[in-house]
């Protein structure tokens, strides 16, 4: 894992996360020749996939032939380190991983799971994509998004603030302002 192999190329990791459930269509979409080639063309060196409870096992590769180095795991107690290491994050539409990624200032592609019954999650990703904080994709459009995205167009997300609502609650309950 370290740079002892003598390669001068710095690691640029793409981290894929599906969250606590499964999202095989996303893992499958990432694990295609065209997507991997496009990522490689864009200078990414590693692909790390958190596949959750999914049954589709992505094909791993050591990346010795100059292609992407592909690894996967099912779950980890915290994906914070994976996110920190990553140069690009491809995530499911859960608000937890969206905001964790945005707060780290990492470029993010959110892929909406269209198989979910109550698909309210797309609302958040759509809204944030409209505000140019992330790219919005469906499993079928993932390749297109990766091929056409320009990371420079992304606007950094300014973290929200819970203080206004805390003030309202305090005032409502008759606590003095301070």
């Amino acid at each position, binding site marked *: 894992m370290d740079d002892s192999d003598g390669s001068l190329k710095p690691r640029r990791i793409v981290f894929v996360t599906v*969250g*606590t459930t499964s999202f095989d269509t996303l893992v499958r979409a990432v694990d295609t020749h065209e997507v991997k080639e496009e990522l490689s063309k864009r200078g990414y060196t590693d692909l790390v996939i958190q596949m959750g409870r999914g049954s589709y096992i992505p094909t791993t590769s050591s990346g010795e032939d100059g292609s992407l180095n592909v690894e996967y795991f099912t779950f980890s107690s915290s994906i914070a380190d994976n996110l920190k290491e990553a140069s690009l994050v491809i995530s499911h539409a*859960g*608000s*937890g991983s969206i*905001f964790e990624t945005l707060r780290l200032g990492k470029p993010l592609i959110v892929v909406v799971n269209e198989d979910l019954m109550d698909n*309210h*999650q797309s*609302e*958040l990703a*759509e*809204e944030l994509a409209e505000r140019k904080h992330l790219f919005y994709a469906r499993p079928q459009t993932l390749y297109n998004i990766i091929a056409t995205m320009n990371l420079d167009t992304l606007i950094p997300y300014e*973290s*929200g*603030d*819970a*203080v*206004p*609502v*805390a003030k*309202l*609650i*305090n*005032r*409502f*309950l*008759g*606590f*003095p302002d301070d």
Partner: protein
Amino acid sequence: MIGKKRIKTKNSNKPRFRQSFSIFRHSETQSVSSHKGNNPCLHRMPINVLIIVTTVISLVVLRILYVVYWSSKPFRTKSTKPVSTLIILGSGGHTAEMLNLLAVLQANRLSPRHYIAAATDNMSLQKARVFEDSLADKRGDQTGETAQFLQIYRSREVGQSYVTSVGTTIFAIAHALLLMMKIKPQVILCNGPGTCIPLCAIAFFFKVLGIRWSSIFYVESIARVKRLSLSGIILYKLHMADQLFVQWPQLQKKYPRAQYVGCLM
């Protein structure tokens, strides 16, 4: 009438109980008399019963309106006395948002704190424990306040059949009732999903009966941009939440009684 008070007097719930029993008794009498409607001896009864039933129903309706009206009004008396608080943790993103909010609320005012999560959610209470530990570290003591961590049965799990869910719903409501009687919260903080509904409904019921006044705050999840969640809609439409906060301006336009507070995350 039991007003909106922080501290309720012990004997204040007695008349309220009596009223609620009388509704039951009269409606029973009414159904009996309608069955035996042919009996001439009972002909005079319905008018009296009707008057009593109408009076009771109007009193109950008035009481509900009174509760709804005062619920939406902030407390007029300033106080720094801590209030017993129930925090309902949703799971995943909901729990993260709730802990994010708690981090900026003054913990010493919301005390003691009781956390509730669904029995099937094993992450949320763990996260709440970590949060409480960090508060204790900040205070620099271990003895002061203590928080309680409780689990609640859910009325229906994902994929459970509707037939068996009747039984589990009854069980879940009974469990929620037991927890609410034990916790006696003055403040309830929740942000969905469904776990909070039975607890909020019981809290509202307790308010109407004059058993206990608790202020219910619901913060709609940041994931809801265009429509309220089902829990949000229930609490909004039935006027069960004292204050309902939304994180996107579009939602406030659609639900004018909600308050727009900007993104919390």
